[in-house]
């Protein structure tokens, strides 16, 4: 019987550090314990962007960095029975599984891949459910993605069928951790206490370095060792539900402060953290340092899971444009403000416009970095300013028209404006609604990869 499971985090978001999983897998392997590694790569809008890629090419729509993320660790994980669980399937888990199968073949390893689907609600039946749940959704034509947050159950099922790798689309982030825990320990799906604890262990892991000194350093107040090489977290979780958060070798740190910040990250009512699997409760949590870079969290529990599942619906959000121009030296702010006023007056009236003035040291600096090194000696930061104008609207041509007025500031704006940059991109809007559990059917399929 397995008494403990180590769960490491290989990624905390889609843009996370590619090298991070290597140290995690090395440490999991060295521990000799039963282990899993999770990859959380889906933000609120990431899935919509994935759907757009899938529309262009039905073979795409999964995490774009999937290959570089898994290449250095796949063989090691499969050969050492370290389960890989990731939501890197994004908008197309079967295509991600195909890529992983190809990678396994290249690396000459035999692997079973569990593919979790059923989160996609964009089909006719799903849409009917969504329309019944919310009357604030846009036209079908504007919808880009609609995905229900699945819980741990399909991950447990895939692992139960011997999957070495589980690839999902939208699942609740902590479920990536809770799945391997339930599989390893056989926790019941109504063991609210343990599910609550396992969920919060997953919550601490799901943002990668955010619990090991990432997103934390405040020089002179909260210093982080080797901040350029932060070891990602590894949780040591017992069958009883007790757990200790540690980290892979490298820089960073795990202490009372890093764990407290991450425990409350994106939490509203601490006594009711809602997930598809459980209502987790950290209202009485306490944080205990048990060694260097080892922290235990006591007092977590859980209560009955919600009756509904959350669905994130993404739709066409029009266009966003941003233009910037710098002013330096005497009266710089006045010139930047005048430029803002001129752009506003020249731009179309029926788009949204926002102006900001940014600045410490930019245009006066040098490519070699000498001035950056002496940044404190440059006196009043407000003499090096940058006007930023943001435009948003549904009509691309109007937004572009506004942006063009930033470009025109070179010859037809205030004195000595420089360094114009312009960017225009489509925008994805998101909303959410809650649907009955019974409206969602998670599915698990096993793909065999043979060398």
């Amino acid at each position, binding site marked *: 019987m397995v008494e403990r499971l180590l769960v490491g985090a290989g990624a905390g978001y889609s843009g996370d550090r590619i090298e991070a999983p290597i140290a995690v897998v090395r440490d999991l392997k060295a521990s000799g314990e039963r282990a899993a590694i999770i990859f959380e790569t889906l933000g609120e809008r990431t899935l919509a962007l994935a759907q757009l890629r899938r529309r262009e090419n039905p073979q795409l729509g999964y995490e774009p960095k999937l290959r570089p993320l898994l290449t250095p660790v796949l063989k090691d994980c499969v050969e050492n029975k370290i389960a890989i669980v990731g939501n890197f399937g994004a908008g197309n888990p079967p295509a991600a599984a195909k890529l992983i199968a190809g990678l396994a073949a290249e690396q000459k390893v035999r692997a079973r891949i569990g593919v979790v689907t059923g989160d996609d609600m964009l089909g006719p039946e799903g849409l009917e459910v969504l329309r019944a749940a919310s009357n604030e959704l846009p036209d079908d034509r504007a919808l880009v993605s609609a995905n229900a947050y699945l819980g741990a159950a399909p991950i447990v099922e895939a692992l139960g069928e011997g999957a070495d790798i589980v690839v999902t689309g939208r699942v609740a982030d902590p479920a990536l951790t809770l799945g391997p825990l339930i599989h390893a320990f056989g926790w019941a799906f109504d063991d609210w206490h343990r599910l609550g604890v396992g969920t919060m262990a997953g919550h601490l892991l799901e943002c990668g370095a955010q619990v090991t000194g990432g997103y934390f350093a405040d020089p002179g107040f909260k210093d982080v060792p080797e901040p350029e090489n932060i070891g990602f977290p590894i949780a040591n979780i017992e069958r009883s539900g007790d757990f200790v958060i540690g980290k892979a070798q490298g820089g960073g740190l795990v202490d009372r402060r890093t764990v*407290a910040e991450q425990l409350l990250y*994106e939490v509203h009512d601490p006594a009711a953290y809602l997930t598809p699997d459980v209502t987790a409760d950290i209202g009485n949590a306490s944080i205990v340092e048990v060694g260097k870079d080892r922290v235990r969290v006591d007092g977590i529990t859980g209560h009955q899971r919600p009756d509904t599942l959350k669905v994130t619906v993404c739709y066409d959000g029009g266009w966003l444009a941003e233009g910037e121009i710098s002013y330096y030296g005497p009266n710089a702010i006045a010139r930047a403000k005048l430029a803002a006023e001129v752009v506003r007056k020249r731009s179309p009236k029926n788009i949204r416009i926002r102006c900001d003035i940014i600045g410490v040291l930019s245009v006066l600096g040098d490519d070699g970095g000498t001035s950056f090194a002496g940044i404190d000696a440059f006196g009043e930061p407000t003499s090096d300013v940058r006007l930023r104008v943001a435009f948003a609207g549904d009509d691309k041509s109007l937004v572009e028209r506004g942006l063009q007025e930033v470009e025109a500031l070179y010859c037809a704006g205030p004195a000595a404006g420089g360094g114009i940059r312009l960017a225009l991109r489509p925008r994805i809007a998101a909303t959410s609604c809650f649907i009955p559990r019974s409206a969602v059917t998670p599915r698990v399929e096993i793909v065999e990869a043979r060398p």
Partner: protein
Amino acid sequence: MIELELHALAHARTGDKGNRLNVSLIAYEPAIYPLLVKHVTETAVAMRFIHRRPSAVMRYELPKMHALNFVLDDVLDGGVTQALNLDSHGKTLSFHLLGLRIPVPEDLVKHARTNRGGN
């Protein structure tokens, strides 16, 4: 009694969900926690973020973590998918809360952090 920025007494992190922001505020030392409870009220936080026009501010107390968790509604101009702000997540706003000054009795000043060699 002297006035100090929360930055000297506590640390913080924000998270966003849609148009709702949460800001944790964690005392460096347990002895400071009652001071946070006393001075960093829902009203004080609503005033601190007045320019973002919160429609509601809720405070949750976590005495065993000597931490407070604030939930501010409708302060992100629609949030990451709508706002024109450079920081549409509101990620930088934890340090706006840490700029709030509160009165600190003389006997607790010893718990205040000062810059220890950083910039």
